[in-house]
């Protein structure tokens, strides 16, 4: 149990220009109200239009500091994982909280371990049933589909096509993200857009979800691709070294079809085994650019030479879909994190127990030590 006041630092995320996210003033105020001494890195929240005075709002326990200061408090909270060079800034007794993705980032994991960093991975905070407590799967599904139909809406008012055809969406994968995609796709990624479409007597959208017992059959998949307007990859593959849809299969999509990449597996050809995207030959986007026309010159820069990419359709792909609507996203993460931070105000990393209350158990599951122990690597 802690007795002295705890400190928490908020470093800026140094990512692509389009990454604007920072925790909102309300959330920072609630940290101060819990009793934390708060250090915000200079410039925190500026991309969202907030200044330090919005964050401070008369509270003496909130102050500005340097990047090293923000990383050396009792807790350093940053949404996306810090870069390797930032790891040196993390204090000896600091608990790093970020989306660290232990299972898919072995190098990061090793570095955390070798430097003795106390880490809690936000994506590993789970309840007793394995459900993530800090997540925005809904935004992944809805933002991706919204972006795709934004493109079609440039051409068709209220998404009503002159030939009176219903829209066809084919979804690969039926996991947590896939479930959201089906819901989002039946509403064109936005409820207000769906209402306008219905008022305009549009023909609607038919969504087909395919699991892996269909996607392995090229002949069956072809029948679907031919009529598909939007092809969505929301899969989680057991074997990321093989694509689900090969580049030659994309020739079956009509020329105006759009591909939406929600699974955001990167091309990592030097890994063993190599990692390729689920839909072969599409680029990897980010918050700076997530729409790629077929003739976009960046296509060849991003897709490795060894990957076939002759067959192209407009691609919508983003490493961090929730970041497209940063305010909504951070409001959600803030609410999800508040009860967890309340636990961490009272207890430090070492003291977290798997046999205590709901949120403490969830935090315990997200400790680096717990992960390493489960893999026999501790």
């Amino acid at each position, binding site marked *: 149990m802690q007795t002295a006041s705890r400190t928490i630092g908020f470093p800026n995320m140094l990512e692509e220009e389009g990454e604007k996210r920072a925790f909102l003033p309300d959330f920072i105020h609630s940290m101060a109200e819990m009793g934390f001494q708060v250090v915000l890195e200079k410039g925190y929240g500026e991309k969202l239009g907030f200044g330090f005075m919005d964050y401070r709002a008369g509270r003496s326990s909130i102050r500005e500091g340097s990047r090293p200061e923000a990383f050396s408090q009792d807790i350093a909270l940053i949404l996306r994982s810090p870069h390797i060079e930032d790891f040196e800034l993390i204090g000896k007794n600091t608990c790093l909280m970020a989306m660290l993705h232990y299972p898919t980032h072995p190098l990061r994991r090793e570095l955390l371990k070798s430097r003795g960093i106390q880490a809690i991975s936000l994506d590993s905070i789970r309840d007793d049933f394995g459900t993530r407590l800090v997540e925005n799967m809904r935004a992944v599904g809805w933002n991706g589909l919204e972006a795709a139909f934004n493109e079609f809406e440039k051409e068709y008012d209220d998404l009503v096509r002159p030939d009176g055809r219903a829209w066809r969406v084919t979804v690969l994968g039926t996991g947590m993200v896939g479930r959201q995609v*089906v819901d989002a*796709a039946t509403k064109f990624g936005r409820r207000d857009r769906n209402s306008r*479409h219905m008022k305009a007597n549009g023909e609607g959208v038919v969504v087909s*979800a395919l*699991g892996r*017992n*269909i996607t392995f059959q090229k002949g069956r998949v072809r029948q*679907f691709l031919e009529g598909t307007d939007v092809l969505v990859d929301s899969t989680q593959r057991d074997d990321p070294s093989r694509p689900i849809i090969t580049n030659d299969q994309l020739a079956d999509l009509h020329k105006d079809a759009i591909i939406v990449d929600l699974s955001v597996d990167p091309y990592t050809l030097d890994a063993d085994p190599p990692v390729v995207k689920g839909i072969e030959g599409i680029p990897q986007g980010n918050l700076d650019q997530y729409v790629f026309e077929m003739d976009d010159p960046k296509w060849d820069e991003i897709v490795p030479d060894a990957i076939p990419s002759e067959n192209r359709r407009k691609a919508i792909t983003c490493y961090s879909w929730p970041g497209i609507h940063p305010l909504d996203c951070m409001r959600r993460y803030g*609410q999800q994190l508040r009860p967890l931070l309340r636990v961490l105000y009272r207890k430090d990393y070492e003291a977290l127990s798997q046999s205590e209350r709901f949120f403490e158990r969830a935090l315990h599951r997200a400790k680096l030590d717990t992960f390493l122990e489960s893999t026999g690597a501790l």
Partner: protein
Amino acid sequence: MHKEAGERRDFLPKFAGILEKYGAQAVLEEGYGSRMGYAQDDYLSSAPSCIFATHREAYGQDIVLVLRCPGEEEMRWMKPGSLLVSMLHFGTRPRRVELLRELGLKAVSIDGIVDDYGHRLVENLSAVAWNGMEAAFQVLEDTYPPPGLRSPKRPPIRVTLLGAGAVGGHTVQAAVRYGNPDLQAELAGKDVPGVIVTAVDRDITGNQGIMQEILSRTDMLVDASARRDQSRPIIPNDWLAHLPKHAVILDLSVDPYEDMDGKHLVKGIEGIPQGNLNQYIFTPDDPAYDSIPDFVNTKYRRHSVSCYSWPGIDPYGSMYVYGEQLRPIMRTLLEKGGGENIHKDGSYFERAISRALLSNWPL
């Protein structure tokens, strides 16, 4: 719970132990848990302070926890000021709300305990979808024409899903796995074509032409909708004529048929029977069709699968899940000394409970 004979659920012995740990003494009705195979000793070994009493005595405690809503007589046995924790569905049961208030009872509706985003904290929607889908595929296996459901020579199974919300999402997952991952693995191992799920929402279901075309190639039609207007079906009975003869209808939304003083409420798929844990599979000539109200058209029939309480098919799994989900809720209620000390601006679980309090209804 004194419901249909097929309703076997009671909270598990481990849950009684948890309540004891939180400072409560559990008073269990004689025979509690016996339909799930538990004896008194199982509860006593988990919660040594628990005692056994009559049905009526169990309702005389400070807090009464029962999963499905008790009947009126049982509510009248409760002490004014005591707290009922149950699936009370305030929104769709105005008469029940009135009665609880008239009796001076406090209440927490388990289905109304939601987080800051409106997500239910005590729910088993996954079981609704998976249990329903498993039962429906068992029926489809019987009705499916040669070469049969397990044949590599058959085409992919086509499931048409009405509604893409919370239950619909789980339904998609369950459907592509035949409601049974073992069966999926077995069939995939034999290169049997899988399942294609087509989800449609209001902008398609209102289009008769498109719907008839979709229905004509549907092997399983699933209602997972949450309608705003229950006086109109999504699929009128006449449309069922377009379904192949072997098709199975699965009802997951379990809206009832009801005559509300002349206003007729109907199921999303018109003309199918309402099932429960005693009977949830209906052949087209099942006598259950005779008890469907006359204002409902039942002319076109297919094999139907419908159950008022899908999670109850797996009582142990269901009560394990509910027990774990209710743990922090009961702890909060006990620590706060009941519902009256729960604050809407309190901790995460307090806020969630406050949204489910009768005293705060309507929100």
